[in-house]
């Protein structure tokens, strides 16, 4: 997660998809620094939670729905359609996943999630692309309608059925398999090395075992699918003809049209795929609670939207943003000292970033992180944190990183622009 700090401004399509040598080296350096800090923080703050497999497992599971819904947003926004309706699509996803899952089991729940998202994606595409209505209005309306409809329809469909009420669907029987890496985290009934490492209590070894084990043990297949959607999307975006047209539709639709591309079809596809993904994220939540629970999206659609912007409309950025969020959320749910440990890590990273920027001569860019870092150090040392603060951990951390990162946001140039079907003038 510390890598976010180095996350640079949006670049146009990468010349190569896999990170280059140099990028790998910097990545590795930051990962090592991060790991070192975690080890130190664990002892300084006396917080075993910071490197515990449970925390890292939670972080992964909390990251996934945000990452997926943000990727869904990426689809439509990269095509030029602002998607404020992600929350609504996600709600649609949870509802339909509840229905499908109840009727036909967990796999169907995932399909149902997609269907639920698609229903609102269709609406959005129709209104925004075909009719050219204001995309903010449509997005806001979709959120309001989805919430209202979910309850209204739950009253009709789930209420009165055995095990269902207006606020939840009957329980979904069965669950999807979880997997682990053989011999590392006990996948397929093999030996679980990381668990032994974590239990050993040895410095470095235990932490490594905790982190790796947490990230790889008993990972649900939905999470795997969800996370795979990120590189898959990156591939589609940068390496397929559709991806090129998709980006062009969001940057300069008139250019696409003039070359014979179909802007509307591209936008339709992007919005539909995106809404399906938002719905899928809803399905993911439903499989965790083994059923639809009203309001269970809990604003994750909006967090997804924030993550999408945080990630600068890039799949990699979305991944970093959502992991940052998911990790701090997991930490916030844990014991107070774990949160203090995170504070410590952030403080040190900010100071390092600040100092290195100042040494490189970027005085103005260096001051903010340095000051923030020093303040955090002081807070860590002298200020008892109010217990309630932990619930805001992910928001505070994200905000702090935004203040420090200094990313130049580069939204798709035609984001929000209506592109009429006929007589289009650029």
């Amino acid at each position: 997660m510390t890598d976010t700090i180095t996350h640079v401004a949006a670049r146009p399509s990468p010349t190569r998809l896999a990170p280059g040598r140099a990028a790998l080296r910097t990545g590795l350096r930051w990962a090592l620094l991060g790991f070192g800090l975690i080890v130190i923080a664990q002892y300084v703050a006396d917080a075993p939670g910071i490197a515990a497999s449970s925390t890292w497992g939670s972080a992964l599971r909390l990251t996934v729905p945000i990452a997926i819904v943000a990727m869904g947003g990426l689809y439509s926004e990269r095509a030029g359609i602002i998607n404020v309706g992600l929350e609504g699509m996600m709600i649609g996803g949870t509802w339909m996943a509840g229905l499908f899952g109840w009727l036909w089991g967990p796999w169907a729940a995932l399909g149902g999630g997609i269907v639920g998202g698609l229903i609102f994606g269709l609406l959005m595409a129709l209104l925004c692309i075909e009719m050219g209505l204001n995309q903010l209005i449509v997005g806001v309306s979709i959120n309001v309608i989805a919430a209202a409809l979910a309850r209204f329809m739950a009253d009709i469909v789930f209420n009165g059925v055995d095990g269902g009420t207006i606020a939840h669907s009957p329980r979904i029987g069965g669950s999807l398999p979880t997997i682990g890496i053989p011999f590392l985290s006990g996948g397929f009934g093999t030996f679980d090395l990381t668990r032994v490492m974590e239990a050993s209590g040895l410095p470095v070894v235990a932490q490594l075992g905790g982190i790796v084990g947490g990230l790889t043990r008993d990972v649900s297949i939905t999470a795997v699918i969800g996370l795979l959607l990120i590189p898959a999307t990156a591939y589609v975006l940068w390496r397929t003809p559709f991806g090129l047209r998709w980006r062009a539709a969001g940057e300069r639709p008139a250019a696409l049209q003039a070359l014979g591309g179909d802007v509307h079809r591209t936008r339709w596809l992007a919005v539909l795929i995106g809404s399906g993904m938002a719905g899928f994220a809803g399905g993911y939540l439903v499989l965790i609670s083994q059923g639809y629970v009203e309001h269970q999206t809990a604003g994750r659609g909006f967090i997804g939207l924030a993550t999408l912007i945080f990630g600068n409309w890039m799949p990699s950025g979305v991944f970093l943003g959502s992991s940052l969020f998911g990790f701090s959320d997991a930490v916030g749910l844990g014991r107070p000292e774990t949160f203090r440990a995170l504070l410590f890590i952030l403080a040190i990273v900010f100071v390092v970033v600040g100092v290195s920027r100042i040494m490189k001569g970027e005085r103005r860019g260096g001051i903010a992180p340095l000051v923030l870092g020093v303040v955090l150090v002081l807070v860590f040392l002298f200020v008892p944190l109010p217990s309630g603060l932990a619930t805001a951990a992910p928001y505070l951390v994200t905000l702090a990183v935004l203040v420090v990162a200094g990313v130049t946001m580069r939204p798709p140039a035609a984001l929000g622009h209506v592109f009429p079907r006929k007589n289009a003038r650029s």
Partner: protein
Amino acid sequence: MVERKELVRLTGIVKRFGTFVANDRIDLSVKAGTVHAIVGENGAGKSTLMKILAGEENPDEGTIEIEGVERSFRSPREAQRAGVGIVHQHFLLADALRVWENVVLADEPGSALRLDTAGARRRVGELAAANGFSVDVDAVVRDLGVGARQRVEILKVLYRDARIIILDEPTAVLVPSEAQSLFAAMRAFTEAGASVIFISHKLDEVLDFADEITVIRAGEVVGHRMPAETSARELASLMVKVAMPSVEPRIEPPGEQIVLEGRGLTVGDEGEVPALDDVSFSVRAGEILGVAGVEGNGQSELMLALLGRVAARGTVSVSGADVSGLSTEQRRGGGMAYIPEDRHHDGLVLSMPLRENAALGHHTHRPVKRGPWFSRSGAAAVAERIIARFDVRGGGPMTLASSLSGGNQQKFIVGRELGSDPRVLIAAHPTRGVDIGAQSAVWAELIEARDRGLGTLLISADLDELLALSDRVIVFYRGTIVGELDPRATDAETLGEYMTGVRSDRIAAPIDQEAAE
């Protein structure tokens, strides 16, 4: 001339927008291997006709024949398949995408699951090399200058194997050297058997490079000429009922008082090669100081620095008073006026009516500002005055700026900026993309303001304009002034040499520059 095969024939093309007839029974025939120029005033219907040929608009009547086969294009794609390619008047490039991506867009090599990136880049690179275009295929379009962008547009056409290449006002934004290489490329296309349809408001180049000329007025074809048998004067009289723009040699010399002065102006972050490097100059009352230079050599930065829109080192003074510390608003209040490079980008708010546009820059004082209030009637009166005095046609104060033609938009801006009786005018490309009627009008206004004592800094890519209007010309190259010339004693060729760095009066400057890189 040998009789050539007919490649394109348009017959009786009619196009209506609502009740307005943009093309009225137009006939046009283009022969293979020729450059066919189309001229006509702004709004005559040239672009519309070309869009019809390129499949972007459907004609209401009439037929299109390509190589004798009648076609009806339902989409740009069908036109491309038939060999028609168009370079739009306003570039249609996605800024955030790379050059090769812009070129192959919608005709990507590879399969649906895999874009053949390497192949695409190679192909585009080869095309560029074959046509003598020096563009980096991996460059992001955002970082390119106008000339390079235009080459990308042409690459798009070539990539699709067009045999009928439409260039809609390609030279409006090019400096002479760039234009020359464009003409060379055009020749190469025609020699390879393609036809070029070429729209321009610059009659000289039309006469020089076209094989045939068609004149359009108000949607109708009003004449068809061979360059050898006609003159600019005749073409102009066919197009519009105004005289060619011309400037009388000035009788009175400019005044002595210095109204605008820059000292050591430098723009650019520390540690980087500055975009504007230690530039000093002065403009006297009643003088027009021309600035020549290939686009991207610091002229834009100079304007922004003078206007106070970018952080710059050095000093700017207006009528002797140092304004370096003042905001744009204060500088304008102190008598600075500005005709921007790109009227759509920062000259007008296209989605607002002329009334509001007239108030731009005048919003700090009466009659627009009354107390804290925005006076609608005051602004409307200003707009009325500009419209009347500068002969802006196309609407009244409540007309949206976007619905005015380009030339009229330009006249409106000139009128707005001169209307406040400024002491200093910074004017960039004041007649870019404007028909000759409007051009005459704008020139006349600039001269008249000059004679009233206005000091003008005139930046233009049109060297004829520079030479005709300026009292002195300074040349920019790589952010510095490399020469100061007397327009009466110099010609476009010499200017070009300075502009491209072949000549320089700045001692040791080229070496300096090289060292800096």
